[in-house]
């Protein structure tokens, strides 16, 4: 018995909470590394600007950073950039809503019923091995060169990541939690609502982030198909006039769209997954 008491005593003395003091230097180190990252990017920009001004980089190869900024400003003021951005955003939004909702629907069908899995999963697994961007020629034949193939491509690109991750999340439900739910009187609908879906949400959101990235990629490719508006059109049009400044502005907009989409999902994750240990503030 004395052994037991000694054990218990030691357990009681050891504090469970981490001491915050040793963290500080790490944060300062982080700040320094951030400064260095910023500095190296700034140096590259300065070199680029200098080379452009010295005539080492021809404007038709790559415009100077200052020119790009000025062009971006002009495009915003003239309303040209907002117009094309809205068109592109509209395509992404439409394609994403179709793609994500069908991905979620298929994942629920396949995840929640054995028969659903037999019917849905095999074709989905076969289709996903296909690089979906290779479907462009078929889509043009099927849907023409209007908006439909563009939206279809974005939908296709976003449906698969959502389907695959959500399906895996549903199937990965902890059977012990399911048992606890059954013992405490949850019926099938209650189990799905309280146990299966909340448990599958984290991986579903990872899928959503992939889907946004994939949707953006699809948008870039789709907008090469005979677009008359949209960021892709802006870029292609600029190519014909050797306007590298406009092309870079378009590329920057694509990049910002990617960053924005990622931030959006992260923000949602912070709210919806507040229960996760790594998100709980100590």
């Amino acid at each position: 018995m004395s052994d037991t008491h000694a054990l218990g005593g030691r357990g009681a003395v050891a504090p469970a909470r981490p001491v915050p003091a040793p963290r500080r230097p790490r944060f300062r180190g982080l700040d320094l590394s951030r400064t260095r990252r910023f500095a190296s990017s700034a140096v590259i920009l300065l070199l680029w600007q200098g080379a452009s001004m010295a005539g080492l980089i021809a404007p038709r190869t790559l415009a100077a950073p200052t020119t790009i900024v000025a062009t971006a400003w002009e495009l915003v003021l003239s309303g040209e950039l907002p117009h094309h951005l809205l068109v592109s955003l509209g395509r992404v939004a439409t394609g994403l809503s179709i793609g994500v909702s069908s991905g979620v629907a298929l994942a629920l069908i396949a995840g929640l019923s054995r028969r659903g899995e037999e019917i849905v999963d095999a074709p989905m697994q076969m289709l996903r091995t296909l690089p979906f961007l290779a479907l462009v020629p078929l889509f043009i034949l099927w849907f023409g060169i209007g908006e439909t193939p563009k939206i279809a491509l974005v939908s296709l690109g976003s449906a698969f990541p959502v389907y695959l991750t959500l399906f895996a999340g549903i199937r990965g439900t902890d059977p012990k939690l399911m048992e606890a739910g059954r013992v405490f009187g949850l019926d099938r609908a209650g189990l799905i609502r309280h146990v299966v879906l909340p448990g599958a949400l984290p991986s579903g959101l990872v899928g959503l982030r992939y889907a946004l990235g994939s949707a953006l990629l699809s948008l870039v490719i789709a907008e090469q198909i005979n677009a008359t508006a949209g960021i892709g059109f802006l870029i292609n049009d600029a190519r014909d006039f050797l306007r590298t400044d406009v092309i870079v502005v378009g590329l920057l907009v694509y990049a910002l769209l990617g960053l924005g989409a990622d931030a959006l999902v992260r923000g949602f994750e912070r709210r919806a997954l507040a229960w996760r240990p790594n998100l709980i503030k100590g």
Partner: protein
Amino acid sequence: MSDERRVSVGGLTRRFGSNTVLHGLDLELEPGSFTALLGRSGSGKTTLLRTLAGLDPAPAEARIGLPDRVAAVFQEPRLLPWKRVWANVALGLEGRDAKGRAERALGEVGLARHLEAWPATLSGGEAQRAALARALVREPRLLLLDEPFAALDALTRIRMHALVLELWRAHGPTTLIVTHDVDEAVLLADRVLVLDAGRIAADIAVEMPRPRSHGDARFVALRRRLLAELGLEAEVLQEAA
């Protein structure tokens, strides 16, 4: 009320493939009694408990009479990590004031300050107390405890033993605890069953007043007897000591 807490099992046989886990088991639990079920790994005790909890289907030929309100606490707390502690306790409760009932149950196990906490922030002992509250809030007539303290440190386990006895006295459910800790069985239960190869090998009444002490001569004697039933010979015990 007393009869509604009675547990009566007759001729329960469970087979998994060619492996017979329970051999025509008969078991009666007196209303409001506290019984401990001891047994080595693979003796069938978890299978019996899962059948009583309704997690495994009972075979048609077995006679099983169970109270209508059964609750269980498992070895792991099995709290849903995405629900706050009170919502875990209120899970599946019907009617209004589910939150109020959950809060009162959590107060009873000493977790009143953690109502809004996420399960991941609780210590092992706190999480297991929340699991106890989740079982008690249903006012169960049969409370099943499946090695509920096995994963806790020694000091926390001592506190949990006291808490379980207190709650059992206050609510009076027929209680069955599965454990392979002989001390725990003797400390808590009125009656200790030893399950061996799917049959009840020993059925021993524990007639000691509570609180019980490990130093009590009757405690030591009963402990030795139960260890022998579990196949640990005296020589082994002496060597270990």
